[in-house]
């Protein structure tokens, strides 16, 4: 796929406004998210302080957004980005469906509420993994646990049985999992990850399970995992008034940039992030011409 100028991840007010501003500046963009936008918009009861749309319910706001972006010819690519790699002069975005390339990236994913399990950060890369397809071959013939936030992860568990000896599956959702025979479904609540040099035990509400690796598969990825090397502060990305991050060419907006969590603030930051990306691209081109 052709490299775009600006890849925008997230379709809340921040991401949508960034897309509109970038299109206005004649940039080639890739807007990744959901065609239904963010749940946080459409499911909101009443938004009282969005300029020009007084007392709008979430679905009304969403409809206005839709009309606006469709009028501008903005298209949304439905995909889930698992990782963004800063390659130096460009970014490589690993989607569930495809790999994309962009000169700049704007993160507008919203904020991740899920808290890590005790021991999770400590043992990450040492018996805790977020990517079954990436690390499965390291656990050939071993016993692994899968903590699954959604039904989508059942395919990952099935895949793991092709490589691992035992796959213990801990669903965090209510539906009955439909996984292959080789997966052992355990309906216990994971509480903690313990180990020594590496993770060895998953502690649950009912007891302990000795495993060689724990795959923690959540729907949302925390920003530091999404963009390796990104400087964060709690659940937020470190930024400034230009919405820059510690990685040149990577910008942030909306809830992910910090509080207050307001629709109008997210939209405003989306505008700033896009303009900063436009400036960054202009500087980059100038540098190339001089070189």
């Amino acid at each position, binding site marked *: 796929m052709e490299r775009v100028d600006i890849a925008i991840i997230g379709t809340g007010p921040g991401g949508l406004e960034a897309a509109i501003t970038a299109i206005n500046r004649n940039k080639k963009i890739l807007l990744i998210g959901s065609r239904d936008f963010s749940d946080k918009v459409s499911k909101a009861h009443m938004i009282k302080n969005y300029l020009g749309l007084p007392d709008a319910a979430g679905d009304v706001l969403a409809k206005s957004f839709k009309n606006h972006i469709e009028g501008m010819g903005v298209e949304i690519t439905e995909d889930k980005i698992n990782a963004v790699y800063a*390659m130096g002069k460009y970014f490589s975005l690993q989607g569930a469906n495809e790999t994309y390339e962009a000169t700049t990236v704007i993160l507008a994913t919203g904020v991740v509420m899920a808290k890590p399990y005790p021991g999770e950060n400590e043992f990450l890369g040492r*018996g805790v993994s977020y990517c079954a397809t990436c690390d499965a*071959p390291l656990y050939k013939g071993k016993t692994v646990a899968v903590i699954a936030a959604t039904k989508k992860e059942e395919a990952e568990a099935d895949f793991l049985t092709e490589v691992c000896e035992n796959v213990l599956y801990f669903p965090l959702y209510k539906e009955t999992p439909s996984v292959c025979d080789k997966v052992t479904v355990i309906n216990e609540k994971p509480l903690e990850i313990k180990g020594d*040099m590496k993770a060895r035990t998953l502690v649950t509400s009912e007891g302990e399970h000795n495993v060689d690796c724990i795959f923690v598969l959540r729907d949302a990825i925390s920003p530091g995992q999404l963009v390796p090397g990104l400087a964060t502060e709690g659940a937020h990305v470190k930024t400034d008034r230009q919405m820059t991050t510690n*990685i040149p060419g990577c910008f942030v907006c909306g809830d992910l940039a910090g509080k207050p969590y307001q629709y109008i603030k997210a939209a405003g930051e989306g505008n700033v992030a896009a303009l900063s990306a436009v400036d960054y691209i202009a500087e980059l081109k100038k540098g190339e011409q001089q070189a």
Partner: protein
Amino acid sequence: MVKNVNTNEFDEVRNADIAVVDFYADWCGPCKMVGPVVEEISNEVTDVNFYKVNVDNNHDLATEFGIMSIPAIFVFKKGVKVAEQIGFAPKDALLAMINAAK
């Protein structure tokens, strides 16, 4: 240049003043991304030796160094590990780690 080494050749790494080793596998996506970044750094940092080890073909090395997740980029000083980066990292971060270890 990044030199591909196996178990038999690993003494070269142990004897080097400073060695950077990229533990990787062919099936690993993030390894494919970080590989060119390490290659680029190796062309700029000339007073450090750069190596890569395919963990699938060198299980004993992977076991010796406790590789649980890849890519794993280790910095050795006379055979002693002084820094590590597990998973992908941007060029600046890798450069900072290597320079700090010098």
